């Protein structure tokens, strides 16, 4: 008897789980409509649940009750149109940075944390600026160490990153700072950085940025999805920074002009005080905006990839023809290799951002083919340039710069060749889109490793020249 009751009990529980799943599905379905806000879905779900309760009380089972209740709710297209008529502004999604409802102080606190971190970073930069004096190299070497840890601090706070991970990352960052500052790099005759120092300085931001990815993911850096989130974050942040810089530049220009007319020299204040605080401030506020607007506004980066993928294909074909016709061997030097790296990085970004916003379940379409063409064109151009470069290196030998450029080229090449292979399988319908997506995120640490090698090992290997 008691067993029967128990069995009945679990049976009912299981049934209700099924009902809960149906509610979840319904929510997901309704939420996709832009005119219906999350609060409206809550309100309608309350209605739906009330209806289901009454119907089950009158003898229907869960499934039947749910079906009837959903049917009575009416055609969602019509309801959604009605909502759109009432709230047309919702079709222009609104960015609510700080909620107006009382009792939700979280966002205000977050803004406070962001501003505090931005000001602290500004103070650091200011100290650095004052101690550096005329020696600009000190500033160039350490600028990134003065700013990025504070951005990392924001995510450590926001994602509640375990202290062990945060401490490890801090230790790595400190070690890198020591390497960049204490290695006996040689400088040129006019105190300009030597080759290995320049390479170390230019590669540290890459290492630090990818380390930032670890805190961004809240420590779950092995997760492919979290890595993709970090890629999205990076793209959106870049776009925000460009916009903030444009706006800031306009304001500064107007202030400069007005003050100039009344005879006040704005420049000392600008250089000594405004920029040291504005630059880290823009970075942190930009990061905060990206965090706040997630899911609110369409991502911009993927939209840009749609525009630039066809244009880039045209550009690559032009370069390819020019290289083949004019004979690649005549004008090849290090600069060409660096240019090739820049082109491959561009192609990689186009690929990464269009992948980051693609619905993984959608079947292959025109745009996927276009991407494949883009990859093929980039690889063809790179192959021509690479052959030319290798013959050249065989003749004149290696330098630190050439090895760094060549190494990056190979790292990018492996990334893109395998991506092209997977994409071919996908457009032919032999492979799922998930495989392409996974490959992109799996490969990211290779860049961190390569950049770390350049920073740490190139100095000793090439005699700090």
């Amino acid at each position, binding site marked *: 008897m008691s067993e029967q009751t128990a069995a009945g009990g679990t049976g009912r529980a299981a049934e209700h789980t099924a009902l809960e799943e149906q509610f979840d599905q319904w929510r997901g379905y309704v939420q996709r409509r832009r005119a219906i806000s999350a609060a409206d879905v809550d*309100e*309608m*779900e*309350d*209605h739906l649940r*009330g209806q289901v309760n009454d119907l089950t009380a009158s003898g229907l089972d869960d499934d039947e009750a749910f079906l009837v209740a959903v049917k009575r*709710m009416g055609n969602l297209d019509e*309801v959604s149109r009605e*909502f759109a008529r*009432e709230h047309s502004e919702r079709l222009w999604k609104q960015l609510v940075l700080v909620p107006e409802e009382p009792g939700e102080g979280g966002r205000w606190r977050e803004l406070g944390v962001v501003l505090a971190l931005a000001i602290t970073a500004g103070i650091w930069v200011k100290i650095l600026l004052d101690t550096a004096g005329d020696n600009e190299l000190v500033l160039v070497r350490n600028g990134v160490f003065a700013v990025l840890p504070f951005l990392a601090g924001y995510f450590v706070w926001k994602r509640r990153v375990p202290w062990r991970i945060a401490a490890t990352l801090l230790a790595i960052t400190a070690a890198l700072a020591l390497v960049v500052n204490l290695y006996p790099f040689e400088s040129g005759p006019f105190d300009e950085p030597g080759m290995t120092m320049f390479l170390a300085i230019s590669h540290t931001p890459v290492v630090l940025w990818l380390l930032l990815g670890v805190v961004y993911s809240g420590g779950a850096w092995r997760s492919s999805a979290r890595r993709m989130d970090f890629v999205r974050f990076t793209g959106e942040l870049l776009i925000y920074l460009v916009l903030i810089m444009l706006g800031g530049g306009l304001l500064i220009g107007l202030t400069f002009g007005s003050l100039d007319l009344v005879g006040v020299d704005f420049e000392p204040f600008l250089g000594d005080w405004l920029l040291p605080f504005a630059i880290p401030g823009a970075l942190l506020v930009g990061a905060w905006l990206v965090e706040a607007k997630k899911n609110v506004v369409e991502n911009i980066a993927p939209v840009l990839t749609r525009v630039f993928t066809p244009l880039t294909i045209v550009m690559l074909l032009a370069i390819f023809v020019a290289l083949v016709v004019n004979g690649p061997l005549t004008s090849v030097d290090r600069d060409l290799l660096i240019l090739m790296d820049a082109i491959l990085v561009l192609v990689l970004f186009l690929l990464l951002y269009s992948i980051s916003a693609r619905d993984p379940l959608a079947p292959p379409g025109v745009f996927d083919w276009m991407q494949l063409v883009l990859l093929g064109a980039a690889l063809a151009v790179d192959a021509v340039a690479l052959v030319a470069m290798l013959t050249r290196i065989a003749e004149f030998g290696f330098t630190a710069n050439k090895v760094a450029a060549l190494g990056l080229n190979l790292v990018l090449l492996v990334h893109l060749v395998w991506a092209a292979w997977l994409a071919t399988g996908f457009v032919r319908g032999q492979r799922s889109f998930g495989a392409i997506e996974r490959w992109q995120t799996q490969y990211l640490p290779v860049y961190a490793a390569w950049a770390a090698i350049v920073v740490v090992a190139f100095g000793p290997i090439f005699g700090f020249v």
Partner: protein
Amino acid sequence: MHIDKDLVAASATPLVLGILADGESYGYAILKRVNELSGGRMQWTDGMLYPLLHRLERLGYVRATWGTSDVGRRRKHYAITADGREALAERRQQWVVVSEALKQVWEDVRPGPAVIEGWA
């Protein structure tokens, strides 16, 4: 019985305001009340109630607050405002005119054939 869509739309505002004039309520309860009042003969499309409530809120006829139901779910409650009561009174006068006119029409109506002859 099927009631014409336009008729439902025209009567929805005074019905909702009238129900809320009795006291604060929420979506599903308002709908149940409409069913009770019409003896189940007025079937609304449930989803359409919410855009309507939001329009009344924007017009300032009702005020919405979020509360919790007895099982702890988020629930939006609506209460009528002074403006809402005024609007209700106005609608009521309009409907009185309409229904009196209709009443006379119904009284004038004779059984089928007679009407046709009259027109001819």
